[in-house]
């Protein structure tokens, strides 16, 4: 799976969790929290949806690795391989 596929997977999940957020103009290198109204509960949902939809596990100590879209792609891509 390519980086842009993984990026789209994360974007899809975010738009389901926070339907009111505009996800079309996100800066991949800026923290998601800065750009969107996401709190720790929402990050839990991203992790839970990754598991539910794609059987990808993110242990709690790795949650910080989901901080930006770029870091999501680098961290998650090997898990989708």
């Amino acid at each position, binding site marked *: 799976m390519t980086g842009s596929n993984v990026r789209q997977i994360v974007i899809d999940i975010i738009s389901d969790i926070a339907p009111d957020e505009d996800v079309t103009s996100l800066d991949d290198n800026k923290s998601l929290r800065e750009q969107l*109204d996401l709190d720790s509960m929402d990050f839990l*949902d991203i992790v*839970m949806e990754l598991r539910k939809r794609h059987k990808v596990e993110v242990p709690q100590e790795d949650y910080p690795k989901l901080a930006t879209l770029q870091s999501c792609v680098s961290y998650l891509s090997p898990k989708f391989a």
Partner: protein
Amino acid sequence: MSYDAIVIGAGMSGLAAGIRLAMFDKKVVILEKHNVPGGLNSYYQRRNFDTPGIRQFDVGLHALTNFIKKGEKGKPFSKLLKQLRLSYDEFHLMPQSYSKILFPDVELKFSNDFELLATEVHKKFPREKDNFVKLVERVRSFDELDLSLGYTSSREILKTIIKDELLIEMLLCPLLIYGSAWEDDMDFAQFVIMFKSLYFEGFSRPEGGVRTIISLLLQKYQEVGGELRLRTAVSEILTKDRTVVGVVAGGAELHAPIVLSSMGLPETFRLTPALAEAKTPAIGSMTFLESIFVFDRKIPREINDSTIIFYNDSKTYSYRPAREYFDPHSAVVCFPDTYELDKRDGEGVARITYMANYDQWRSLSRDDYAAKKEAVADSGLALVKNLTKGFDGKLLFKDTFTPATIERYTWHLNGTVYGSTEKVRDGRTPIANLFIIGTDQGFLGIVGAILSGVSMANLHGLMGGEA
């Protein structure tokens, strides 16, 4: 039967916890003793004796706190919507007009715009203007969701900021009676939660009342595949080596590696034989009674347009169990019709809540109980009339529920409404994987209860020891 998780109680917190767990493919069952869900915020119906048909009444909900406008972000209500994947519009929220704290010679109005309260305080307590600003700053910067906080007296903190005792009493009055398990005081974290919920954010009512909220939660719970069993009382919480393994419900054993209990902390301890030796948590003493009056027409806006009146007949607010059955010196009067100011036809409703005394209501004979209820209703009606002078609507119906009623339908010991004075903010009990949700976890009101269920299900059911 085996489940991934068992939730005790189909109140707001239990339904919310059930939704979160089932949403992520846990096999969940909610066990509810009553034949309707809702817990402390429920509803009932009575056949009319004057006209054909039935009337439906809410219990609990005077107002939904934590009002937000559509699209507002980062607030408790918006968190609730996201976590349960519900849309704002489904709640059909009708904002309050305004409410007031009514003490002798002085009243403070507040609404869903915090500026109203700030202006009222400046106008009526001019010398406290700067102090009030300081209090607001303190509240704004406080992290009330920190699960590690212990008890701090709100009165002690307030005294260091506000000099005028009357202002302290008036500000505390709605916050205490809408959520404190403690007599005459409350934990500062809870004060902050309530201050934000009532004064910063404000009140609304879903169209259709509490049933709208319950049916949204039920519908979502079913959608995500959760199982609900009504009329199913839990009689024992089963443990092995101080770890929960399931419950006995309706005579059968149900097994699960995690149990979330919303029945209350002392109530949960009582059903857990493994905790027989443990010190039983304190049973809260704050309980209430409420009378409801239905009139043949709505109270005209010119006579009363405030949604909720927090009434107190002296300069000191006494928040403790009534000495005699109920305390006539203080009451909360709710005029639900004021939520929908444009609908002026149909019947008018007033609800009045008093602090009560559980022991006295429990010790009455059947006849005396009925007579006492009449006396309370008379007193309540007199106060409603006093607050709506000039209104001559005909009384069609009245009903009163007491602490005995609350105990009978919620099984909260002593008819307590705000639970134990011991709150378990992280939800943990001495039994591994047995967790407390709802009022005794320490979040307040309907929004608080729902967020309690959500956050405990997240912490212990989804993130924690993987069930």
